[in-house]
């Protein structure tokens, strides 16, 4: 993948006046800054890095604003730029380099027996005992590409089609990756619950 986002590579579709650019920026881009920051933070785990990533994303969005069709899905467009910035630029200089070989994980979870090995009996009651920190910890401990689909779907409410565009992957891959990601998270939570004795607490209640 090139250094630039696809949005940046597209030929200009519009030639907005400064006034229209400012309006698009304020009314269509800025309302998503909080979601963008949370997405960036969940990718980087660092407040300064997340801030830099969001700032960089908005700068690019403004620079390439003529590639954006006003009134269309600004949130998905911005998330796509942020995701590409994270992969192409940020990951290289990240303070927290990737510890897991993504290809290895993907190969494993694509294997036929992957489904067989993930058998969790995670109960709603177990989750109720946990606090947000513990659930977030489980999410943070799954590889970034799997973590990303959970964030986009369950926290940001993107459809499979939107996620497919944001992540540059086919819809079928979105579906299977999301399924595996959720199973990975359940597995992490089950192991954690067993270690902390949450199931035992429930049984003794």
């Amino acid at each position, binding site marked *: 993948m090139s250094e630039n986002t696809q949005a940046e590579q597209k030929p200009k579709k519009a030639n907005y006046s400064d006034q229209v650019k400012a309006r698009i920026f304020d009314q269509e881009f800025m309302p998503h800054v909080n979601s963008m920051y949370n997405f960036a933070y969940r990718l980087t785990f660092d407040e300064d890095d997340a801030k830099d990533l*969001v700032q960089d994303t908005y700068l690019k969005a403004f620079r390439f604003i003529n590639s954006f069709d006003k009134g269309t899905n600004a949130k998905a467009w911005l998330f796509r730029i942020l995701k590409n910035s994270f992969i192409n630029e940020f990951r290289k200089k990240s303070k927290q380099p990737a510890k897991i070989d993504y290809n290895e994980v993907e190969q494993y979870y694509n294997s036929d027996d992957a489904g067989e090995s993930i058998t969790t009996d995670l109960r709603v009651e177990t989750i109720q005992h946990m606090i947000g920190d513990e659930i977030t910890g489980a999410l943070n401990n799954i590889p970034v590409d799997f973590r990303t689909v959970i964030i986009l779907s369950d926290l940001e409410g993107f459809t499979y089609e939107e996620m497919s565009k944001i992540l540059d992957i086919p819809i079928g891959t979105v579906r299977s990756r999301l399924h595996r990601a959720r199973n990975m998270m359940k597995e992490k939570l089950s192991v954690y619950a067993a270690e902390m004795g949450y199931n035992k607490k429930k049984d003794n209640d």
Partner: protein
Amino acid sequence: MTKFSEWFKDTFQKCYCDQGNLVNEKRFEEIVQLVLDDEADEESRRIFEEKIKNCVKSQTTFEKEKHLREKLRQKLSEHKTEMPENLIASIRKSIAQ
């Protein structure tokens, strides 16, 4: 989005209640995901709803996944990081330069 109805029907044909076989649990999980993510087309959703009306095993699995998903989403949503106060000002400053 592709229509899943044939896939749904095929999976349900092997279900416990109809054939005396266990439903293909891995496929059923994926079907539940499509339904909960609101990605199943209308016909598939209808087939699914009909199925869980008549199959205790399917309904139990669906309800469990639904509640688990809701709880996880709720806990994750509550645990958001506060955006730095100066972020908006920094963005505006950077684009003004």
